[in-house]
């Protein structure tokens, strides 16, 4: 089914009639009364304002936002940021529609599919080659805008801030750097003007003044005071200045302030924001890189598997220390145990091999609950001096001081027990693997903490 938006010409798509059922609407309000969701919208493109208005309505609509939109005729550069191009031939159109339908089937249809981010991910998922382009508009306070982001967020969030969040959570990745601009530190507007001012009193009333320096008496003054009927004569000592370099020279200070009479080499530069009218030095301006963006691998994963959440976050109650610190402490313990025979400890690794797959099978919420109850039990098993870190989303390391081989075996048994009891409630098996070494007995050669961790994780995977 196609929906045609056209102000007058309902027969525009006559040749598509064989393949598609076509409905015609004059404007968006008319469509809203019926809210039919088509395979694609087609907009008659002779009136740019009309096209843009329909498009921006569609992209803001809570249901139709991701539907394919084509324009008959040429596409303006503004529309280009929402639209899927100009209307292709019927067969090609059919192909595009079926492709999108396939992609839509594979899209994880989450029930809470209403946040800006989910809408954006769906939109981009349905268009695998879509590049989110900024649109340059000199009237816009920031010169660049992302009309698609504005539409999908219903104008509720600042496009640049949102992009930053998306980039931080690695949902989008930058494709090309298109521009770098300076923005007002107060309001982030790019409409700036630069003015040079006196470095002494900040007055803008400065001028270039040619100055001279008399070698005879050292007098420095503006050139006008030296000129007497076609010759240069020092106003102080009356020496005639004939030759630069031997009688006089020009001081480097060739700017003067008319407000405070200060002479200087180079004025200060102030940036002035045209929007908020605040002044700042150019160094304080904020630099903003303008990129084009596309959906990242992670973004695509979210599209398939549903709303993303950090599985590892469920381990957070274990009071992890940083990997660097853990490696450092492990090294220290290794050295300690080699020097003093009565000191011994164990290193224990836990690896969950199938977390993403499991999340798909039993759902995120369930997996999260499962891991959290495991973490709770694990926490109960750890003693105060035990250290733990996470080197990957699904890889935990525990350093257990004063634990020998026997203690280690006991620890592993308890962990297995608790996991099994958790697993009883679920049909799915959590593929967990363990490795434990009692140190320093199982240390091979001169290996240090990094090598040891690498060897053990290699054995686990």
């Amino acid at each position, binding site marked *: 089914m196609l929906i045609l938006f056209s102000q007058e010409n309902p027969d525009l798509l006559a040749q598509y009639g064989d393949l598609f059922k076509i409905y015609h609407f004059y404007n968006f309000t008319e469509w809203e009364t019926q809210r039919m969701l088509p395979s694609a919208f087609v907009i008659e493109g002779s009136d740019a304002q009309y096209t843009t208005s329909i498009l921006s309505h569609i992209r803001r609509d809570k249901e139709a936002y991701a539907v394919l939109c084509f324009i008959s005729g040429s596409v303006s550069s503004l529309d280009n940021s929402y639209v899927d191009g100009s209307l292709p031939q019927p067969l090609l159109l059919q192909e595009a529609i079926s492709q999108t339908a396939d992609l839509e089937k594979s899209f994880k249809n989450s029930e809470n599919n209403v946040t800006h981010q989910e809408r954006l991910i769906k939109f981009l998922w349905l268009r695998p080659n879509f590049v989110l382009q900024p649109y340059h508009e000199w009237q816009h306070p920031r010169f660049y805008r992302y009309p698609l982001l504005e539409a999908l967020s219903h104008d509720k969030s600042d496009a640049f801030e949102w992009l930053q969040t998306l980039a931080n959570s690695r949902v989008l990745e930058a494709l090309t750097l298109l521009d770098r601009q300076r923005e007002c530190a107060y309001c982030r507007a790019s409409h700036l003007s630069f003015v040079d001012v006196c470095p002494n009193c900040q007055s803008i009333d400065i001028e*270039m003044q*040619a100055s001279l320096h008399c070698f005879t008496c050292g007098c420095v003054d503006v050139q006008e005071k030296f*000129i007497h009927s*076609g*010759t*240069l004569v020092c106003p102080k000592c009356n020496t005639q*200045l*004939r*030759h*630069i*370099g031997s009688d006089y020279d020009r001081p480097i200070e*060739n700017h003067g302030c008319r407000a405070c009479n200060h002479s200087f080499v180079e004025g200060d530069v102030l940036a002035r924001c045209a929007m908020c009218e605040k002044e700042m030095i150019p160094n304080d301006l904020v630099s903003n890189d303008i990129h084009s963006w596309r959906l990242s691998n992670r973004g695509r994963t979210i599209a398939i598997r549903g709303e993303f959440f950090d599985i590892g976050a469920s381990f957070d109650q274990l009071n992890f220390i940083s990997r660097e610190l853990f490696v450092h402490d492990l090294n220290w313990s290794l050295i300690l145990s080699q020097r003093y025979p009565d000191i011994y400890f164990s290193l224990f690794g836990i690896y969950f091999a199938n977390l993403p797959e499991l999340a798909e099978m039993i759902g995120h919420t369930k997996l999260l609950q499962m891991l959290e109850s495991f973490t709770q039990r694990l926490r109960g098993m750890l003693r105060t001096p035990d250290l733990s870190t996470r080197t990957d989303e699904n890889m935990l390391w525990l350093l257990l001081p004063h634990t020998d081989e026997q203690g280690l075996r006991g620890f592993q048994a308890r962990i297995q027990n608790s996991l099994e009891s958790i697993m009883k409630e679920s049909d799915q098996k959590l593929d967990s693997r363990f490795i434990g070494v009692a140190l320093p007995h199982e240390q091979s050669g001169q290996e240090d903490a990094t090598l040891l961790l690498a060897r053990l994780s290699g054995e686990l995977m």
Partner: protein
Amino acid sequence: MQILEQTWQVFLITFSQGKSSVSYILVLVPFVLFLELPLYFVSWMGVFRHIIKETFETPLILPHFPRITCAIICYSEGKAVQNTVISLLEQIYPGHIEIMAVVDGVHKNQATYQALKALEPLFLSYPRRSLVIIPKTQRGGRVSSMNAGLSRASGEVYLALDGDTSFDNQMVYQAALHFQNVDVVAVTGPMRVRNAQKSWITRLQSLEYMLTMQVGKLGLAKFNVINNVPGAFGIFRKSFLQQVGGWNTGTAEDLDLTLRIKQYKGRYSQLQIDFEPGAVSHTDVPESFSEFFMQRLRWDGDLLYIYANKHSKGISASIMGWRNFIFLLWYGILFQAVMPFAIVIYMIYMSVILPLPFFLAVMLLIYFFYLLLTFIQFTLYLAVVSDRKWEDCRAFLILPIFPLFQFVVRIWSAVAISNQIFNKGHLDSAMAPWWVLKKGK
């Protein structure tokens, strides 16, 4: 030692014997002195004419600020060329000055070219000054550079300047005033020695420049018989220069051009070559004796080349007018070309016929004569012409050896002219490639 005592005796006797011996001296004293003296007188008369004019006539100075083109002929000056350009930028002249730097053989002289390029931003802060750099890939010599500049010049007045010469800041203003008079076709000004304090030879040359270039030229100019518009500092009316056809191939192109301008005077006697004492230039002279002698070997040899080879037919009263003809005959031929030989022959003759003490006494007499002449000339210079009196006073110290210097220069001049006659010295010049020099007459 004995000889010196005897010389002194002869010297005292000659002077103590009163009138009868004066005629005897007159026989002994070389005729060359009398050939030379009138020239000095002419020059001094000219200077006095200048003083009278300066004192009693207040000239009507109308503002006249034509567009000026300063062509700087650059070769291997390197960074030194910047001084020249800056001294031109610094001119106190209300009109437009187009500074045109012609770099000959630019591939070889990248340093010069880059030094000029580096000055481009400086022009932004000087109103009514523009820089044109003409890089010449094929080296063609001085003449080729000056003509290249002439063909591209946009100014009404064309200045041909050397890359190692700088100028006082009123130079253009003072020189341009002369061109109000439509009969003035060329102007030159005093050249001062910039590196005078470097060595003995530069001090001597500095004094020589003061006496010949400043006093001498000022005097000659008043009679409208200026001998030469130097290549390092020549100011021309562009239209006339183009009419004459610019510079001609061959060495001593400046003297050649001066002569060719003079050859118009038979028909257009109103044409003038002026000297402007206020248009001062500063140039570097050779700093060692060997360099100095090499330079003079070239200059003096070229004189004969110009007079005898190039302009043998042009030097006539009907072509250049009687006044210039007589002057040229006198100054150019007799003074510059014949006298050096006369001096050498006279020296040999005297040393043969006179006993040594007598010979030395005569030499001493001649020395004192020239010392007196130099002293008068220099005092006149200091009193009337010099614009840096205190600085120039230093030259008093070398006044006693100046006559000896002049003597050596004269003798060397004879060598140079012989070299030209027997060796074709004009083809051996660093001013242009050999294939260019060969095309000269």
